[in-house]
Every structure is written in C-alpha cells, then in structure tokens.
C-alpha cells in the first residue's frame, strides 16, 4: 500500500487524538496514563513524520532540493527541542 505524506497528516494526528481519548478513559479506570502520553506523542510527531516521508519520497523522485530542505527542517526542529531542554 502506497503511503503519501498527506495520508500521514490526515490520519496521524486524528489517530493520536483517538488514542489520547481512549487513554483518558483507561486512566480513569485503571490509573495508567501511558496511552494518553502515546496519543499526545502521536499528535506532536505527525507533522515531523510527514516531513520525513516528504524527504524520502522526494529523494526517490530525484527531487534532491526538496529532500535536503526537508532534512534540514527536521534537523533544525529536533536540535532546537534538545537545546531548549538543556537550558
């Protein structure tokens, strides 16, 4: 099954929302908040995962400019998050 970047955008964040909702129900009954955390992680990582797929798809289509720009964006985001945590 071929996955396009827009599919990750469309379904990824929605999946995260559903997982978070189920997690809230589980947390109230079983006291475990792992699913809630997983849901939020899914929501946050959806756009970044889309970028990763754009980078790969562009590389396969030999659109090297888009691929490199996408990788630079991913690197900048991850590096900035890590730096902000240590300050």
């Amino acid at each position, binding site marked *: 099954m071929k996955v*396009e*970047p*827009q*599919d990750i*955008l*469309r379904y*990824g*964040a*929605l999946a*995260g*929302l559903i997982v*978070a*909702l189920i*997690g*809230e129900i589980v947390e109230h009954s079983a006291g475990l908040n792992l699913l*809630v955390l997983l*849901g*939020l*992680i899914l*929501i*946050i*990582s*959806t*756009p*970044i995962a*889309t*970028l990763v797929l*754009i980078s790969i798809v562009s590389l396969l289509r030999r659109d090297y*400019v*888009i691929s490199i*720009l*996408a990788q*630079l*964006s991913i690197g*900048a*985001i991850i590096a*900035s*998050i890590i730096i*902000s*945590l240590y*300050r």
Partner: protein
Amino acid sequence: MLFLGAIGIGFVSAIGGIGGGSLMVPFMVLVLNYDVRVAIATSLLCIVVTSSSAASVYLEKKLVDLKTALILEPTTAVGAIAGAYLTLNLPVEVVKGALGVLLLYISLNMIRKSLSKTTVESGGYGKIAFKRKIAGVLTSFFAGVSSGMFGIGGGVLQVPIMNVVMKIPIKVAVATSSFMVGLTAASGGAVYFIKGLPDPLSVVALASGIVPGATLGAKYLGRLKPRTVKLVFSAILLYASIRMIQSVINWV
C-alpha cells in the same frame, strides 16, 4: 463547556476564515480560568490536529509551495521553540500582556481588512528574489515566536510574510501557511509536552469540538456575511486583548 466553546470557535473560524488559535487561548484563560501556560500548550496540540486535515487537502491538490515552506520552516520552528521557552520562563502576567498586544494587532488588522475593499489576485508567480527569501526567512522567525509563545498557529503573521514580503499570491500563501502551521505548532508543542503542560482531556475536547463546528460553519457560509462575522470576532478579540493588557497593568 470547553467542547461547546470549541464548536463555537470552529464555527466562527470557518465563516470568518480565521484561525481558531487566537480565540482558544483567551477563551480558556478568561472564561474557563485556565493557567495561561496550560492554555497555550493545549491550544498548540489542538492546532496540530485541526490544521492537519486542511493541510493534507492542500498537499494532495498540490497547492502548497513546498520549496518555500521548507525554506521558511527551519527558522519558523526555531522561533516557535524559542517562543515556548520564553513563555515558560517569563512571569505569567508578562505573557498575558504580550498576548493582549498580539490580540489587539489581530483585531485591528481584521477590522481594517473588513472595512476596506478587497482585490482578487490573479496569475502565478515566478522565481522569488534572493533578498525576498532572506527577508522571509528572518521575519518567519517572529511568526514562529508568536506561535510558540501564544499558542496560535502563526498563520496570521506567516500569510502576510509570504504575500507582502515574498510576493507570493494569497491563495498559495494560505495553503503553504496551512501546511507550516502544523509543523510550527508541533515544534512549540513538543517543548510544552516535555514539561508536562498540555491537558490531554482539554486537547481532546477542543479538537473534537472544533472539527464539527468548522463543518457547521462551512455549511452556513453562504447565509452569514463573512464581513459581519469578522467584525463581531474582532470586537470579541478587542475585548479579550483589553482584559489581558489590564491584568499586566494591575500586576505592575
């Protein structure tokens, strides 16, 4: 209450063509008494969810100028993370006051646009001049800061940057900004998430309400005048901005 408010926010956003982020945070802070940092963190995650569906459509229809988006996104995302860092380290009242100033800008800008005659752009655009790209990259940082600091998508600054600074047609600027909003919100949201600030149940309630609200708004689009909705929305934002600015004056 949050779910019902979110339906209203989605409705107004769809009719007025306005991002919901600028209403979500004031609603949570002023009406529901949320801590401003929790409200901002929650709003950012909600924006990721709600912007994703529109962005996926634009991406599928190839309306997004991917090259421009990827040129601007690194500085925008860094700005969002810097904005989140600022909100986490500045006094709450200062953040509220700064948010009030931003809301004032948004409301006055909206009033000005509602009262002026609009012109429709036509035609495509060629290669963007290098100086304009640099200007766009530098100013996008501030769009990112506004997103991370205030829990908005950043489109309210990003679209004018692309349209006015980089001379990109408005429709392409809106589609490209829509794609960037999710990434920017996710970058700022990640910092808040690691600090444990977003309220998951509120994220679910907001996102679940905004989507049907926006669908309803889209259905009623033909029956209500967007200009009237924008003016009402501007008045609400103006009131919210005054309340926020007042809180920092009282604190000083």
